[in-house]
């Protein structure tokens, strides 16, 4: 396992937190209630906090003299390794919740394993993040039940979001060559081991939410190899705006 393997492995985890955090941030001040606004902002804060820990570690590992902000803001689109799920747009509150829930369950299971990593940095980040993510999962799961088993309209919207976002779940379990090497070294996690448990969990909750499980045989992928949907470019043009426009300054 090289340093580059490790850095790429971290991107595969941390970029999810960054991009989902960025997506949720767009909503700040525009939610259906003040209470959900506060809760969603909390999740964005947690995710961005985790991102910082990971990127600080990348900066340490890097042979170049870089900071967490260089990692966050100065890569090109093809260098971000987040899954396609987290970059999907805030179409409506149902998409926001389903995207969150599909990610949270995975995120929780990942961190549970990462806690046992041989790498002390990963152990520490996982331990701290687990508390946060266990709350995220409860929040998004509870809301998904409310939407699924709420009104006729909310059920329809929730079902549409589930149907549209389900195709992005499989990619969560893809392992790049970097991922495999880091997992073999006992630093990273072999995510395939909890794939069955993941689908059991989300299927059970969808059933409780009186929603149908989509019958999909072909899944979307690409993000883990830096091949993103067309949304990604616009996320980045806002996110990177200041760093690109005013290079090498302190803020």
């Amino acid at each position, binding site marked *: 396992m090289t340093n580059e393997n490790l850095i790429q492995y971290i991107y595969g985890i941390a970029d999810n937190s960054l991009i989902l955090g*960025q997506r949720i*941030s*767009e909503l*700040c*001040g*525009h*939610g*259906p*209630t*003040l*209470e*959900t*606004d*506060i809760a969603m*902002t*909390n999740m*964005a*804060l947690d995710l*961005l*906090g985790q*991102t*910082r820990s990971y*990127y600080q570690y990348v900066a340490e590992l890097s042979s170049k003299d870089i900071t*967490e*902000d260089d990692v*966050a*803001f100065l890569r090109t689109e093809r260098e971000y390794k987040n899954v396609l799920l987290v970059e999907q747009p805030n179409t*409506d*509150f149902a998409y926001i919740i389903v995207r969150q829930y599909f990610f949270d369950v995975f995120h929780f299971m990942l961190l549970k394993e990462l806690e046992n990593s041989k790498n002390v940095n990963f152990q520490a980040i996982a331990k701290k993040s687990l508390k946060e993510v266990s709350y995220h999962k409860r929040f998004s799961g509870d809301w998904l*039940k*409310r*939407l699924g*088993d*709420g*009104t006729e*309209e*909310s059920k329809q*919207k929730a079902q549409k979001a589930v149907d549209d976002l389900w195709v992005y779940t499989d990619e969560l379990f893809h392992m790049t060559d970097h991922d495999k090497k880091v997992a073999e070294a006992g630093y990273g996690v072999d995510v395939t081991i909890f794939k069955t448990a993941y689908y059991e969990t989300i299927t059970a909750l969808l059933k409780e939410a009186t929603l149908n499980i989509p019958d999909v045989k072909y899944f979307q992928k690409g993000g883990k190899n830096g091949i993103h949907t067309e949304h990604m470019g616009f996320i980045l043009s*806002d*996110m990177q*705006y*200041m*760093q690109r426009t*005013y290079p090498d*300054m*302190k*803020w």
Partner: protein
Amino acid sequence: MENMKEKEQMKSLEDIFEAKIARDEKIEPKDWMPEKYRKTHIRQISQHAHSEIVGMLPEGNWITRAPSLRRKVALLAKVQDEAGHGLYLYSACETLGISREELYHQLHSGKAKYSSIFNYPTLTWADIGAIGWLVDGAAIINQVPLCSTSFGPYARAMVRVCKEESFHQRQGYEIMMTLCNGTQEQKDMAQDALNRWWWPSLMMLGPTDDESTHTEQSMKWKLKRKTNDELRQQFIDQTVPQADILGLKVPDEDLKYNNETGHYDFGEIDWEEFWQVVKGHGMCNKERISARKNAWDKGEWVRDAAIAYADKQTEKEVKEAV
């Protein structure tokens, strides 16, 4: 006879109420209070709550573009605090017997006001610094006296709000400081933000005393302890030295320290602009209200779902209990 008795009772209730205020005791929601007191407080607390909520928008405008992760997180946390303030204040207001829906309706329909400062656009990152420094600075001066106002729930909410606001104010000043220690471009950005936010911040302290209504009554109820002009002078006296430390120039040719009074003299405020923005003609009035209204309208089905779900759960519990 009956009428006479009622009047006497009323008089005695009023006496108790006024004595309480005089003794600096709090009025609580369950206590008797004059209708005018209730109405005035609903107006002021809700206006304050609306200001927090609308105030999330100009700053929220920069969350996705914040220049570093640290600043992004701090800005998100700040905007979240404002949502929190909105929440306490709406709750305090609800204790006076008005629903959140009704309060939102007053905001969306334009019946209720909110602080006009939020109708100015945030154009550069330095505006985030300037808002923290100046707008929160002015807000604190307005708000600190409210921590000991007569209505209990409002006073208690304000204690918490003020603590967080002064943290925000320091954070804003620190953003300005970082810019002013940076490149020429960053300094220019900071100066430009000061130029644009200075006068609107002075206007936040309210119209001049001779234009101001309700002041006497508000003094009595401890909703106000100083006049607008006094507060404005306090803000200027406190802020100008801070600008000097930053190396920025306050955009007022008439600004000058007066050795005799021990205060800064300052130039004429453009009250025409102030009243136009209050009347809805600021650059962002329409945008702000429509952003809020949009969030509320688009969230209706979500709130309905939550209610429907809760009802179903209660029904289940009842059935299981039977």
